[in-house]
């Protein structure tokens, strides 16, 4: 199975966290690393996007968005009925799993690059688009008939929150400047990308470790949920990617996007919009189980699925 050394840094972080080492990445460094990753991934997407006919992307984008909305809507009743979770918690978790994870996406891209597999550069646009609708659906599910939502605050939080802003900002700069204009920035934003991703994964490991302890409290249902949901979502993405005519790489990335759960944008938005939800449960599942599952087993699996459907389906 395909293996990408960068995930070893995540393991190191988990180990350090579990044994209670005093290792920690200072908060401001973590902030800087995320700003870097978001900008860099946006720039990469923007440069590649400049080579495409934008209008041709509208239809697939709408389809990918619409199908993506199935995920939170489908998992919500599962969480309420099978998981016996309270409405706000179920809605909040649904939003996390409907949204996407930039770091999971980056690890998938790293794997494709290592295996020298091409992919459509505009996948990054879908990454940006998919961050949003699930959050809105989550809030609606939580508040249906109950109290009022501060939509203004929420919309602001989501659209102008730093994740989306840096991704779209980077996308636009890359698009406007083009490969030529960006060249003097290549060494910072492109060549260092994977190294920075490694450091980021180290920190993610430290945080995931602190989540693993809390998981016992939530029991077998949540663990199962956090592993089965990404696999099913990835299957949905694989089939859709294949039907839309994406390459093997693109198909695998769409599957990864659907399979990934947000742990940056979603927690912040849900804490504001659905404060009754316990953040420990949703982040615990997304970061403590789904994220490690995806980077170690999920991504190689989705890669295999994408190749499989392209071989079998032609």
């Amino acid at each position, binding site marked *: 199975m395909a293996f990408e050394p960068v995930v070893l840094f995540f393991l190191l972080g988990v180990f350090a966290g579990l044994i209670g080492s005093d290792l*920690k990445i200072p908060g401001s460094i973590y902030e800087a690393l995320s700003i870097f990753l978001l900008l860099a991934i946006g720039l990469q997407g923007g440069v590649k996007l400049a080579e495409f006919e934008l209008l041709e992307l509208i239809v697939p984008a709408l389809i990918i968005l619409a199908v993506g909305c199935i995920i939170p809507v489908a998992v919500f009743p599962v969480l309420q009925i099978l998981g016996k979770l309270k409405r706000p918690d179920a809605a909040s978790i649904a939003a996390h799993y409907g949204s996407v994870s930039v770091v999971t996406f980056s690890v998938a891209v790293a794997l494709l690059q290592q295996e020298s597999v091409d992919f459509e550069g505009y996948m990054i646009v879908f990454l940006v688009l998919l961050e949003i609708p699930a959050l809105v659906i989550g809030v609606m599910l939580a508040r249906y008939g109950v109290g009022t939502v501060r939509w203004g605050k929420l919309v602001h939080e989501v659209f102008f929150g730093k994740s989306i802003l840096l991704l779209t900002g980077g996308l636009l700069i890359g698009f406007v400047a083009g490969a030529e204009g960006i060249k003097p920035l290549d060494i910072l934003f492109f060549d260092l990308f994977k190294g920075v991703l490694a450091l980021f994964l180290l920190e993610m490991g*430290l945080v995931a470790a602190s989540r693993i302890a809390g998981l016992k409290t939530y029991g077998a249902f949540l663990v199962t949920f956090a592993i089965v949901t990404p696999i099913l979502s990835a299957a949905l993405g694989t089939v859709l990617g294949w039907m839309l005519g994406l390459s093997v790489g693109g198909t695998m990335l769409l599957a990864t996007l659907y399979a990934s759960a947000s*742990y940056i944008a979603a927690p912040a938005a849900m804490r504001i919009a659905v404060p009754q939800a316990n953040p420990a449960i949703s982040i615990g599942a997304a970061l403590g189980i789904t994220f490690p599952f995806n980077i170690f087993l999920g991504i190689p699996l989705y890669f295999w699925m994408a190749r499989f459907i392209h071989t079998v389906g032609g």
Partner: protein
Amino acid sequence: MQTQEMMLLVIISESLLEDMIIDEITELGAKGYTITEARGKGTHGKRSGRWTQGGNIRIEVVGDGALCERIIQSLIAKYDVDYGLLMYTLPVTLQN
């Protein structure tokens, strides 16, 4: 030099709420405030200041008793149930 007997209100809450609390206390009439970054533990669990757990802020407001009372009432109504929040008051002598 005249000194003035005032009330000091200390609010400890989630960093996430900073903008909203500041808007609130400014609307209710606070002339100023001081914020420091904090972390801690309470009934809403540990808030280590690491990113996914979130941190706390510690807000000091020096004002008269009535102002402090208004702020306390309003923050309790809006945030006490769902968010980490601790408030205490004490008398201080303002020196300038």
